[in-house]
């Protein structure tokens, strides 16, 4: 629970810090209040800082403008000769100190509450990669990747941009209302940062380390954020979408995910039970390649320099299948080549390998079956 110092004093504070800014500033110019108690408190701290600075600015700039008018040479031909005053210096040292102490108090209490991650109801492990988010519900074990879903055509100005341009994902993070959610944030390559402005939660995702944050969201809705730490090429293209639902709906969704995972499991069993033909695999493989691989390795397989190597004619894509499989499934250490095993099904991996080994002049004739991929997991 929040604890403000003093009832009537805080009432006045709330009136000043909330009421006036909402009227004076259009919402367009202001920090959003967000939807949680903490985010509203943070907006109030922002207002407090802002208005104190505005008042001090009015006083100081007012004095300057006045002086530039009244003490210009034409109006004041003889300058005064005073050069110092210990009293005045003392006053304009003391008053700022007092103002700062006043500002520090609500900031301190809010910070203590923000950093209290105890007694949560639900924990989500958030892992950042280049350039997507991975969410895992620790209690139920449900986990999935969340990728940007804005079409490349919109980015390339070939199609009009929709309302949630750059703020849409394929699978949002789903959370229940009115529960204290604990976020464990980490990364598996470079530093990213998970930020949802409506919750006022921003926590850096640091590879090899775990950070914590929390939020309790009292309302239903969809809330969007972005990665807030430069993380390479597509830093602008890894949005966060949180879909907050009533508890019962959330529980139902978890069940749905469990069932979906079972179904996917059954589909995977079926997939590896049969032998797939080259043309089927090539077709699926091309889709997978276009969706996941082509941004770095290019649709023509020619890559982009040493950093994103060409697959056409590459040793790995024409050499031992086991090495190719390992590279795609586990990624490459210390590079942007990710581990695709957790993200793609056996069929998808088998298909994309087959596609790579038989395209752009790579004529290995190899057909990789989903069973082979399954056995390598």
């Amino acid at each position: 629970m929040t604890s403000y110092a003093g009832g009537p004093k805080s009432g006045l504070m709330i009136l000043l810090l909330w009421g006036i800014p909402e009227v004076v500033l259009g919402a367009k110019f202001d920090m959003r209040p967000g939807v949680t108690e903490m985010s509203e408190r943070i907006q109030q701290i922002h207002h407090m800082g802002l208005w104190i600075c505005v008042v001090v600015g009015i006083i100081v700039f007012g004095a300057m403008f006045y002086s530039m008018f009244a003490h210009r040479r034409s109006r004041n031909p003889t300058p005064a000769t005073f050069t110092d005053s210990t009293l005045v210096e003392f006053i304009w040292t003391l008053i700022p100190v007092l103002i700062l102490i006043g500002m520090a108090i609500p900031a301190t209490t809010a910070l203590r509450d923000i950093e209290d991650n105890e007694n949560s109801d639900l924990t989500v492990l958030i892992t950042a990669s280049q350039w997507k988010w991975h969410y895992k519900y620790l209690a139920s074990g449900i986990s999935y990747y969340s990728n940007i879903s804005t079409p490349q055509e919109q980015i390339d100005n070939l199609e009009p941009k929709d309302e949630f341009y750059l703020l849409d994902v394929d699978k949002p993070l789903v959370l229940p209302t009115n529960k204290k959610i604990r976020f464990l944030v980490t990364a598996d390559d470079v530093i990213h940062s998970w930020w949802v402005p409506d919750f006022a939660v921003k926590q850096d995702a640091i590879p090899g380390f775990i950070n914590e944050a929390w939020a309790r969201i009292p309302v239903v809705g969809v809330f969007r954020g972005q990665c807030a730490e430069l993380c390479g090429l597509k830093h602008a293209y890894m949005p966060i979408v949180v879909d907050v639902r009533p508890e019962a709906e959330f529980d139902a969704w978890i069940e749905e995910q469990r069932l979906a995972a079972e179904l996917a499991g059954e589909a995977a069993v079926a997939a590896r039970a049969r032998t797939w033909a080259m043309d089927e695999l090539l077709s699926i493989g091309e889709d997978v390649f276009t969706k996941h691989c082509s941004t770095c390795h290019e649709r023509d397989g020619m890559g982009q320099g040493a950093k994103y190597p060409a697959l056409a004619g590459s040793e790995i894509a024409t050499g031992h299948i086991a090495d190719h499989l390992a590279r795609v499934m586990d990624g490459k250490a210390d590079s942007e080549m990710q581990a695709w095993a957790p993200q793609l099904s056996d069929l998808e991996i088998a298909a994309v390998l087959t596609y790579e080994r038989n395209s752009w002049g790579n004529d290995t004739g190899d057909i990789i079956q989903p069973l082979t991929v399954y056995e390598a997991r």
Partner: protein
Amino acid sequence: MSQRDKKRHTTLLLALAVGMFGFAFALVPLYDVFCEITGLNGKTSGQAELLAEIDRSAAQEDREVRIEFLASVARGMSWEFRPMDKEISVRPGMMNKTTFFVRNRSNKTVIGQAVPSVSPGQAAQYLKKIECFCFEQQELMAGAEMEMGVTFYVDAELPAHINELTLSYTMFLVSDLVGSNEHEHLSSHNVR
């Protein structure tokens, strides 16, 4: 002003510059020491705690602390790695053991190094490990699997407001060159 003074001052200032360069490097162990003392950043001590130093009397405490375990593999690492216990409740001062399962999925011998991280960071210094697979590199032959243990206790000094801890391990690739003494990816630090 004199030439000698100028020389002296120049020498002193150069020495200051060189000293600050050394200070930058000194920040590295200083940071580690500071982290150990305060538990900043969730780095646990890499040393095995001496059994003799455990305060047995604290095991009588009524207090329960929940610890959850997480495991992940870094890029390029072809192991399956998961905790056998998702979470346990412990009493401060009491000895506990938990295990992690690893399996080398690849067709090569692979050496890995697990690196722990504790959240909240301030709790790290109170999580004392007696034995941990993270103290050393682990080598697994192709297709092999094993269970690796962590023996630990939570110090009774754990601040009262902390009742939940998360201990997370990331398994990093050290080397996967079959039968070779070279290391594809060097970690020359003695991991502590």
